[in-house]
């Protein structure tokens, strides 16, 4: 018999027999037939399990049973399965879960379309005890930063056997997060990673399982943190991995080289308003909180101001920022993009932070976390998590869907985890607002800065498109937190031609591949105006 395309590997330990039969039935129902199935019994105490497996193996030569002599747990059992495979790709299936009938067919089609693919993952949902399907996880396209924040690729993962063996299979000591650890190591070396945007896997929820309760396996969280830290160390990233706010989530705390000069570019007209019951001059509050809450000392604050800015405001800025301050007058008609470009041209830092004047720094490591990811050469831009003064979410990355440039999660409570924790971890996004965004200096010049053809709105959307058009990732950083008192500094007006201009360049925004529908709900999402100070 020729080697099959797929080898399904399933470690088995004492599942309820009716559940195991359902799993077997879902494999036998595959419309694609070129597969083998390695079932590794990890010394199940219930004798019926092995009898059932042998029964199926006798009826179908594609099914093979490996019997372990001792109970070695999931890592050893899975590795025994990997040792036995003959197929070109390994598909990992748990003993109580279900594949959709077209699961292998869809993977085979993708393998044919992309012959160099090494890792494939697809969407999944959960199946309850009553057989009800729910909690559909529409995953983003390949997002390495997100994989460091959570094991999002999960089921169904299909890995080229050669690569799986090259990385040594599953690692001991990572029980409970062994799949996360494997995904991190495999994707580091994969030539191509493909996401299949279809549900091909039903994850069974049984009481006490990780599918039912993320707290069920606390040891898995510890192992997961270590797996991510290992990757950070392997890649030489300057970061420590911290536990996220919920089990299964991780945050990267970045370190910034003290010699790295960071230039903050802030446009202003010197407006003021009431915030939290206090009369505040926005730019003064912005610079004050930057100075007070930023550890990194190698800072330059470039303030580009229009002539109406009161002299007293400039005086206050000098007092607060001292020799870190660079004041640049702007006397031309209002054009946010040109103002920012001018500010950048007068800055000297290797890292640029574009900052509105109506912001206030909230988190202690906001700058390190925001700028740190730019050390990775394929990250072109980062954006922050912004809150309204009411503590609700203002910005959590853009989504380009349904013909609009959207702010998903706008108005959500500030402590909301979002769908599948996406408000609490760093992740790739189609775009971020320039109200607080960071770029490498060379990238800013490479993409031509902010387009001056869009003086007010959508210039940040255009910038994000340009950054991605050059092959860079954009990372939204959950731990870089600021308040954004949006629209208090300038009347919000969006002209039709502005959107038309953006669409003329980049096409109609739809089917965002990082923030897929229905994660963005029509009710909650609002159009991004890209409005600036």
């Amino acid at each position: 018999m020729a080697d099959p395309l797929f080898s399904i590997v399933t470690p088995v330990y004492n599942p309820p027999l009716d559940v195991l039969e359902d799993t077997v039935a879902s494999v036998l129902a595959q419309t694609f037939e070129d597969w083998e199935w390695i079932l590794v019994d990890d010394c199940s105490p219930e004798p019926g399990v092995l009898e059932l497996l042998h029964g199926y193996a006798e009826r179908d030569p594609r099914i093979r049973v490996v019997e372990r002599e001792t109970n070695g747990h999931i890592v050893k059992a899975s590795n025994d399965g990997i040792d036995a495979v003959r197929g070109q790709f390994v598909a990992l299936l748990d003993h109580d879960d279900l594949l959709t009938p077209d699961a292998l067919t869809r993977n085979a089609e993708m393998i044919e379309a992309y012959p160099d693919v090494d890792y494939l993952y697809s969407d999944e949902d959960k199946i309850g005890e009553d057989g009800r399907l729910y909690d559909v996880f529409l995953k983003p396209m390949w997002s390495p930063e997100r994989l460091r924040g959570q094991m999002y690729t999960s089921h169904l993962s299909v890995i080229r056997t050669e690569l799986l063996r090259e990385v040594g299979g599953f690692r001991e000591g990572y029980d409970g997060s062994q799949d996360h650890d494997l995904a991190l190591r495999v994707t580091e070396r994969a030539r191509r990673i493909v996401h299949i945007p279809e549900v091909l896997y039903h994850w069974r929820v049984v009481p006490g399982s990780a599918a039912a309760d993320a707290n069920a396996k606390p040891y898995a969280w510890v192992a997961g943190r270590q797996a991510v830290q290992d990757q950070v160390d392997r890649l030489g990233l300057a970061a420590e991995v911290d536990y996220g706010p919920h089990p299964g989530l991780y945050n990267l705390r970045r370190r910034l080289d003290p010699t790295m000069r960071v230039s903050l570019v802030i446009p202003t007209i010197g407006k003021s308003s009431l915030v939290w019951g206090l009369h505040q001059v926005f730019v003064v509050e912005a610079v004050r909180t930057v100075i007070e809450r930023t550890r990194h000392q190698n800072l330059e604050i470039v303030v580009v101001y229009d002539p109406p800015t009161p002299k007293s405001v400039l005086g206050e800025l000098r007092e607060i920022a001292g020799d870190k301050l660079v004041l640049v007058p702007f006397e031309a008609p209002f054009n946010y993009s040109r103002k920012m470009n001018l500010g950048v041209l007068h800055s000297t830092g290797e890292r640029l932070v574009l900052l509105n004047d109506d912001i206030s720094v909230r988190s202690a490591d906001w700058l390190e976390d925001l700028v740190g990811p730019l050390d990775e050469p394929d990250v072109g831009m980062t954006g922050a998590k912004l809150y309204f003064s009411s503590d609700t979410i203002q910005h959590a990355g853009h989504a380009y869907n349904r013909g609009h440039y959207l702010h998903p999660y706008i108005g959500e409570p500030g402590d909301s985890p979002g769908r599948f924790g996406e408000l609490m971890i760093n992740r790739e996004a189609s775009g971020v607002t320039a109200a607080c965004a960071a770029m490498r200096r060379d990238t800013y010049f490479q993409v031509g800065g902010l387009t001056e053809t869009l003086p007010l709105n959508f210039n940040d959307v255009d910038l994000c498109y340009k950054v991605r058009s050059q092959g860079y990732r954009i990372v939204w950083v959950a731990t870089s937190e600021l308040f954004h008192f949006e629209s208090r500094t300038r009347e919000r007006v969006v002209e039709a031609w502005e959107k038309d201009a953006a669409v003329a360049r980049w096409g109609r925004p739809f089917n965002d591949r990082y923030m897929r529908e229905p994660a963005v709900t029509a009710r909650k999402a609002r159009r991004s105006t890209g409005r600036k100070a």
Partner: protein
Amino acid sequence: MSSQDVAQVNDDLVPAGIEPAGANAQSGTQTGTQTEALTRQVELLQAELVRAQHDVLTTRDHIIGLESENVRLQAVAERLGRRVTMQHNRLQKLRTKLRVQERRTHRAERKLKEVLASRAWRVGRVLTRTKTPGV
């Protein structure tokens, strides 16, 4: 944008009175005519540099924008081209169908005329005392 417009735009980029970091500490320290002249020259060169850098920046933006628009329009043109080809093929098929139908109609009309002109028809009409509509 004309070259005159560009010049106008660039003049906006040379604002008077940029205060670099530490400017306060340095003010009043420059003395002597020669130093002042040199300082002025440096300022002019710096302004020139900013102009040139701004030109590079905006040109790069235009290039990327135009490239993207070009790629997008090419895709649209290709899609429309495929639609034209498809519609053209459909038209050809319909024309062929039409020609076949016209030939059939012509043949049927000729046969009808032959029937109406036949002796059998005339005799039959006399015997049944009926009139052929339209004849």
